[in-house]
């Protein structure tokens, strides 16, 4: 951490804080952005919530069929990915901190680290999808479930949910990586500093939210039936 904190010696100008015409103060602008972002995240909670409701209903209906899928879930890859995402959340939080302290080089470093972790996650996810395809576990495309034939029908529901939920999560990761790229470009252009870091913070909130979704997907998809 070579750079030092630039002390704010003057009242920030509207240009510095990117104050838009319809706001009275930078504080009002920041408050509005924060509330807006959280409101958006609530919509995301309910969006994923629909699939979690489906999961809960069918797990209650077909507990044994759901548990029978455990031997096809790769606990090592799933666990690694969980850890990778947690690391990316830490570096994201550190990015926000760096932006707040006007530490440009740190900001760029942590953003790049976050993106690397995000990419690792997606690559691992890709390998898992590939394995599922090879093992013929993709509902509607090549589904065969020979081992526990009595569960073949109902286990398809779990695999459908697996692909729908992790797929939707991966899609959010891809969007997140796009947003991080945008931040990186802006950070490189010295846009962010102690008086203006709202985009870093808002995209950070989004990134953490995507992490939280995975925190629930991991036990619900990978850890059921592991006790058998």
């Amino acid at each position, binding site marked *: 951490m070579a750079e030092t904190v630039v002390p704010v010696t003057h009242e920030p100008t509207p240009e510095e804080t990117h104050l838009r015409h319809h706001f009275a103060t930078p504080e009002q602008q920041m408050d509005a952005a924060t*509330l807006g972002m959280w409101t958006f995240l609530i919509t995301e909670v309910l969006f994923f919530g629909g699939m979690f409701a489906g999961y*809960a209903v069918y797990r209650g209906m*077909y507990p044994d069929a759901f548990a029978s899928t455990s031997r096809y879930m790769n606990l090592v890859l799933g666990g690694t990915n969980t850890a990778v995402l947690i690391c990316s959340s830490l570096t994201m939080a550190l990015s926000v901190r760096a932006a707040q302290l006007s530490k440009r080089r740190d900001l760029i470093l942590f953003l790049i680290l976050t993106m690397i972790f995000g990419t690792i996650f997606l690559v691992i996810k890709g390998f898992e999808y590939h394995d599922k395809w090879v093992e013929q576990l993709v509902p509607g495309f090549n589904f065969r479930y020979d081992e526990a034939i009595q569960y073949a029908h109902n286990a398809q529901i779990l695999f459908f949910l697996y692909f729908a939920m992790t797929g939707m999560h991966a899609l959010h990761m891809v969007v997140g990586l796009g947003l991080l790229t945008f931040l990186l470009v802006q950070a490189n252009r010295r846009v962010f500093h102690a008086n203006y870091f709202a985009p870093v913070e808002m995209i950070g909130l989004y990134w953490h939210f995507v992490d939280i979704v995975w925190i629930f997907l991991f036990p619900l998809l990978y850890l059921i039936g592991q*006790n058998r």
Partner: protein
Amino acid sequence: MTAHIPKVRPLVLVWASLIVLTGITSAVSKIDLGEWNVVVALIIAVTKASLVAWIFMGVRYTTTLTKLFVVAGLVWLGIMLLITASDYKSRNWTYQGQPWSQTKTVGGSH
């Protein structure tokens, strides 16, 4: 700006706890606790999610209004999950005999 600037130490501590909790939940899943496996897994997941929200996302340092919004979102998720579940839970309860002398049978086959 009067934003809260987090310290590095709590961030790293939260990160470490999250990694440890991931290990715990994976390990516990191998032990047969019957129906309690899912309960433990969910408690750990909720704990992890709360840590992320409380510290990484800074809910701790936000306004009451933001906290209220977060809670409202979760309550609404709860409404959806619970009422939907209530249908599936009670769908196979059946009347036996006359409604005024009915007994309940819980569960049933699907």
